[in-house]
């Protein structure tokens, strides 16, 4: 069996919105559906969404070739307007490909909000999922800025 590949990825962004507005863009599943797909060609469909400590989301990320990845999120800690910590498990076909611990930290910076996203990833398929997280979340965090452009 392949050894587990462990990685940590940190991404930082600054948004022209209050921590409360940025937090709402994470807590509101309708908002998350708008910004979390990395490209227009990728669809995200939610089978369950329950944003509270102990709650679970189940979402399906469908790529243009119909390959799909099912992500199950367990919300562990939610501090309104400050921090969200969740564990995420990704299954591709019938194979579990990764587990990750993800922290979202929000802090006010003048009229803006600084967001730090830390992904601690254990991949079971070599480096593939690490690249997937890098690509997917980098694009999603860029999309998130559009939520605050009006």
């Amino acid at each position, binding site marked *: 069996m392949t050894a587990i590949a462990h990685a*940590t990825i940190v991404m930082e962004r600054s948004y022209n919105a209050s921590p409360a507005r940025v937090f709402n863009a994470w807590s509101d599943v309708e908002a998350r559906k708008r910004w979390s797909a990395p490209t227009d060609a990728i669809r995200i469909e939610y089978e369950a969404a329950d944003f509270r400590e102990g709650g679970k989301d189940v979402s399906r990320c469908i790529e243009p070739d119909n390959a799909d990845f099912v992500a199950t999120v367990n919300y562990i800690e939610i*501090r309104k307007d400050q921090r969200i910590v969740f564990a995420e498990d990704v299954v591709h076909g019938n194979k579990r490909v990764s587990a990750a*611990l993800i922290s979202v930290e929000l802090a006010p910076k003048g009229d803006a909000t600084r967001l730090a996203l830390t992904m601690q990833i254990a991949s079971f398929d070599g480096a593939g999922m690490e690249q997937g997280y890098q690509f997917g979340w980098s694009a999603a965090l860029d999309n998130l800025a559009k939520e605050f452009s009006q």
Partner: protein
Amino acid sequence: MTQRSTTHATFVIEREYAHPPAKVFAAYADPNMKSKWFRGPEEWKSTHTLDFRVGGKEVSSGGPPGGTMHKMNGEYWDIVENERIVMCYEMHLDATRISVSLGTTEIKPSAKGAKLTYTEQGAYLDGYDDAGQREQGTQELLGQLETFLNT
């Protein structure tokens, strides 16, 4: 507003045991066996429940009489018999959540018996704990596992 801090860290512990992988794995999988080594000091009043399957939960709590209660609360995310255990767990001191961790245990056959690699990727919350203390605590637990395997 309370100031929040989150510190992320990873540590890796490698151990070699003079026992086959199946025996090491069983010490994690069997609730009675695991309760014997996965525990705090003898003088603590402790409880432990384990449902060892994907999606199953584990809760271990204990503390000195009248003192702070230490509680570990985890869920198994992936299990490959005799080879791999992946879990996510949180630690509380009384009602305060102090950390959330992703822990992976990999077991491989070795010349001596079995080589165990434990990797913990943790988010330590609001300054209550850090990776150094957690690594030390985990080293002690893996020492207790060795004592258990040897008896």
